[in-house]
């Protein structure tokens, strides 16, 4: 049965809530009463629950199977996190309550911040960024503020070719010109090329480490040093922090700012596209420029440093990035996760994540081309290219073929530096048995791709939909439901 849109249902005039009748009062709406129909369909509770339950079953999810999405890190979301985030003491408090009525909430923010600082070996943390890309923005604004504070407006941010698209986008948003740093044949930043480009116009570099090829940058300390020597600053994209948490502290690598995607390293749910949370840790150099607001412990009491109090001891802040104080609901989940895993557990997390990825790399490198496979182990994700596929068969076909095997596809065509890239990140929450199943499935699809099996072009066959026409969607965008024109139905 196909599930119709709520706008198409026969029962859409219903209502799934009971609202107490409003007392009679004289309206004070300024004469702006809304008179025309709004056009919002309503369903009773049974119909509502059924509509969304049915829709949900058209989704793939971690709860259903492996999500081998390189660079996106889809790991298990512990249910305790969900339970804790729903405690009324966290879920039912207003962001502007008097400080003394939210001491527990501020402690959550402070405690999580403290662990993020310690785990990264950095100096301070900004908790308010709403997501990873927002964190990048936060980091770059701090860098630009620091440079401006010393009267040294620079123009260029260097970004490796393999960077996430958000890196150049963010740098451009902050007014920087983006220049690429080339990669070596081993998939790392070309240190010599980088050094050659460094100069007084370079505000800094944005680097991802482990990088988007799933490899650790062994020259990272030297890179940082070189950038610092010319007066630049080092931004690290923390998307892959989950590969090293508990084993390597970015602060020890000379990083000045790094955002942390709480869902990638600290298991908050992805939710079909957010909400995220992207706290940013700073080196001592950037700390004075961190945004408002933040939480500070003063004796036994937690206080919120907002606009009013910032002047006194945080005068160089670059300002506010969002209303209120950040993604509290994600903080409670991440803190719950950190306390659950503890120091030994977090180290085990990164070890298992790396182990799982290497297991996939070495179990498939006979059938798939691993462009950097010869250079040693990978970190938390395994990278393959489309080399060896038969003429006409693409990475996309392999991805769609995996759907028919019961798995979500891997990340495709990223990083851009590898042709037809397939980036596979199993995460630490997958069992060996599941990895073996996945390896078997991908092996079988890869063999079909190499043999040029034409049926692969038709995949997926066993999904709620066959391949969708994305060109049509973009050419004539239909972004909202509209009443069909009378008589159309009869055609």
């Amino acid at each position, binding site marked *: 049965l196909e599930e119709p*849109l709520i706008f198409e249902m026969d029962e859409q005039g219903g209502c799934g*809530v009971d*609202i*107490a009748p409003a007392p009679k*009062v*004289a309206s004070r709406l300024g004469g*702006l*009463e809304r008179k025309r129909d*709004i056009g*919002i369909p309503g*369903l009773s509770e049974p119909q*509502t*629950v059924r509509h969304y339950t049915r829709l949900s079953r*058209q989704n*793939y*999810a971690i709860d259903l199977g492996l999500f081998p*999405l390189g660079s996106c890190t889809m790991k298990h979301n512990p249910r*305790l996190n969900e339970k*804790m985030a729903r405690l*009324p003491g966290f879920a039912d*408090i207003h962001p*502007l309550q008097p400080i003394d*009525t939210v001491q*527990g909430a501020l402690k959550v923010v402070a405690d999580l911040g403290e662990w993020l600082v310690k785990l990264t070996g950095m100096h301070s943390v900004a908790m308010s960024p*709403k997501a990873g*890309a*927002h964190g990048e923005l936060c980091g770059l604004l701090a860098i630009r503020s620091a440079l401006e504070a010393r009267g040294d407006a620079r123009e260029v941010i260097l970004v490796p070719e393999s960077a996430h698209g*958000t890196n150049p986008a963010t740098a*451009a948003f902050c*007014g920087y010109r983006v220049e690429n740093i080339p990669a070596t044949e081993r998939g790392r930043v070309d240190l010599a090329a980088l050094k050659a480009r460094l100069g007084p116009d370079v505000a800094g570099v944005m680097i991802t480490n482990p990088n988007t090829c799933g490899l650790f940058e062994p020259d*990272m300390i030297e890179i940082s040093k070189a950038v610092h020597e010319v007066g630049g600053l080092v931004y690290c994209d923390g998307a892959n922090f989950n590969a090293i948490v508990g*084993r*390597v*502290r970015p602060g*020890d690598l000379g990083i000045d700012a790094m955002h942390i995607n709480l869902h990638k390293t600290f298991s908050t749910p*992805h939710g079909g596209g*957010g*909400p995220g949370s992207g706290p940013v840790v700073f080196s001592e150099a950037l700390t004075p420029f961190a945004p408002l607001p933040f939480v500070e412990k003063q004796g036994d009491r937690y206080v919120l440093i907002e*606009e009013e109090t910032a002047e006194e001891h945080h005068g160089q802040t670059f300002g506010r*990035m*969002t*209303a*209120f104080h950040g993604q*509290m609901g994600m903080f409670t989940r991440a803190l719950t996760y*950190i306390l*659950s895993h*503890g*120091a030994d*557990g977090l180290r085990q997390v990164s070890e*298992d994540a790396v182990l799982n990825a*290497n297991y996939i790399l070495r179990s498939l490198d006979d059938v798939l081309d691993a462009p950097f496979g010869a250079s040693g*182990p990978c970190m938390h994700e395994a990278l393959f290219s489309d080399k060896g596929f038969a003429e006409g068969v693409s990475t996309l076909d392999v991805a769609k073929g995996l759907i028919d095997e019961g798995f979500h596809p891997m990340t495709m065509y*990223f990083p851009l530096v590898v042709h037809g890239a397939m980036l596979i990140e199993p995460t*630490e*929450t997958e069992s060996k048995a599941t990895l073996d199943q996945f390896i078997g499935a991908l092996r079988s699809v890869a063999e079909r791709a190499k043999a040029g099996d034409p049926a692969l072009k038709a995949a997926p066959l066993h999904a709620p939909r066959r391949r*969708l026409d*994305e060109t049509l969607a*973009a050419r004539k965008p*239909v*972004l909202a439901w509209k009443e069909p024109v009378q008589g159309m139905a009869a055609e």
Partner: protein
Amino acid sequence: MRYLPLADTDRQEMLRTIGAKSIDDLFVDVPEAARLSGKIEGLADHASEMSVERQMTAMARRNMVAGEVPFFLGAGAYKHHVPASVDHIIQRGEFLTSYTPYQPEIAQGTLQVLFEFQTQVARLYGCDVANASMYDGSTACWEAITMARRVTKRGKTILSGGLHPHYVSLAQTMARFTGDQLDVALPELAAETDAERLLASIDGETSCVVVQYPDILGRIADLTPIAEKAHANGALLIAVVTEPVALGAIEAPGHMGADIVVGEGQSIGVGLNFGGPYVGLFACQEKFVRQMPGRLCGETVDAEGKRGFVLTLSTREQHIRREKATSNICTNSGLCALAFSIHMTLLGEKGLRELAALNHARAVQAADRLAQVPGVEIINDSFFNEFTLKLPKEARPAVRALAEKGVLGGVSLGRLYPEAEALQNGLIVAVTEVVTDEDIEALATALEEVLA
């Protein structure tokens, strides 16, 4: 460790397959100097669920819970009753633990919800199209300003004094780096909004005017004259709605000429959550759609001709356009958008209008009662579920004194505008359907005591 499925025997076997002697071999690329030998300092080892639950619960108990006291805070975040079925549905693994729907064949659930969400938001706002959500209202507001700049190719933005001060603050932060020119002002404790100032400020350089509706003090003014003046000057009108329930009672900004309508969706389905995560709503008229930031879900067909949905117009986005993208945003607020959409479906036209009517009626009753408190003056002529009091003394300490009496009495303008002398006696009071007669009486009585 309950979340880690590998057994030690698995690990050994896998290392053998890999050809490594130990886990350390896999970290060989990490320079010696950067290898952390011990454990993270100060952090305990892994703990049982029960132990973690106790630690978290202890912190939760140190907060005063909105639902357990007379509660009147608003100013951009509102306490409404969220039906139990909303949370039930968003906890389904297929929604909670699914990914951004880049593989549409196995993500039609999320995609159809987003399509429905976009339509709901567009209709609520009186616009043609909406996107699949933003981080929150404040970031949506700034994105609207940058979108107006892309449309008009002008850099001057006029912000109403009635715009939420955090939204203004965020715009000021960003404008410092982007070079946008902002015309800002403080609100005045008066019945009238600053529409006159806005009308006077619009000129041929103006990219857009940003007006909150109802505004930060709760006042409601017709946006039509501003829209007309803006359009006559080639500028856009951006309307900001922090309380979406209001649009069940008052005319939609999109029907009064607003080109872009943005706002906070938290009231519907999401809950207070100490300020986040929330859900930014973003809608505009059809002609601007290709300049709209954020994720968009569109209708299409599959290889068999069946209707389906996909993320679309992603050529505007960072993962395609990189440094030429319209925005650096990569995430929306998917699960909150789902919650919003479910709650909206439960409400429907009927429920939304009833809910709005109840909010307004309760607020009117509360205003009438509070006006009787000696020395208290109601600023507003017009309001929806939120209005501003002028107290005979500074409101900020008064709010703290109320809290000590177990009443969360409102948001002081002193908290929002710490440096604006003229506003220190202002208190914003929000009154939603959760407020009872007893709550109103409790506030009135406590306020009398505090002001005495």
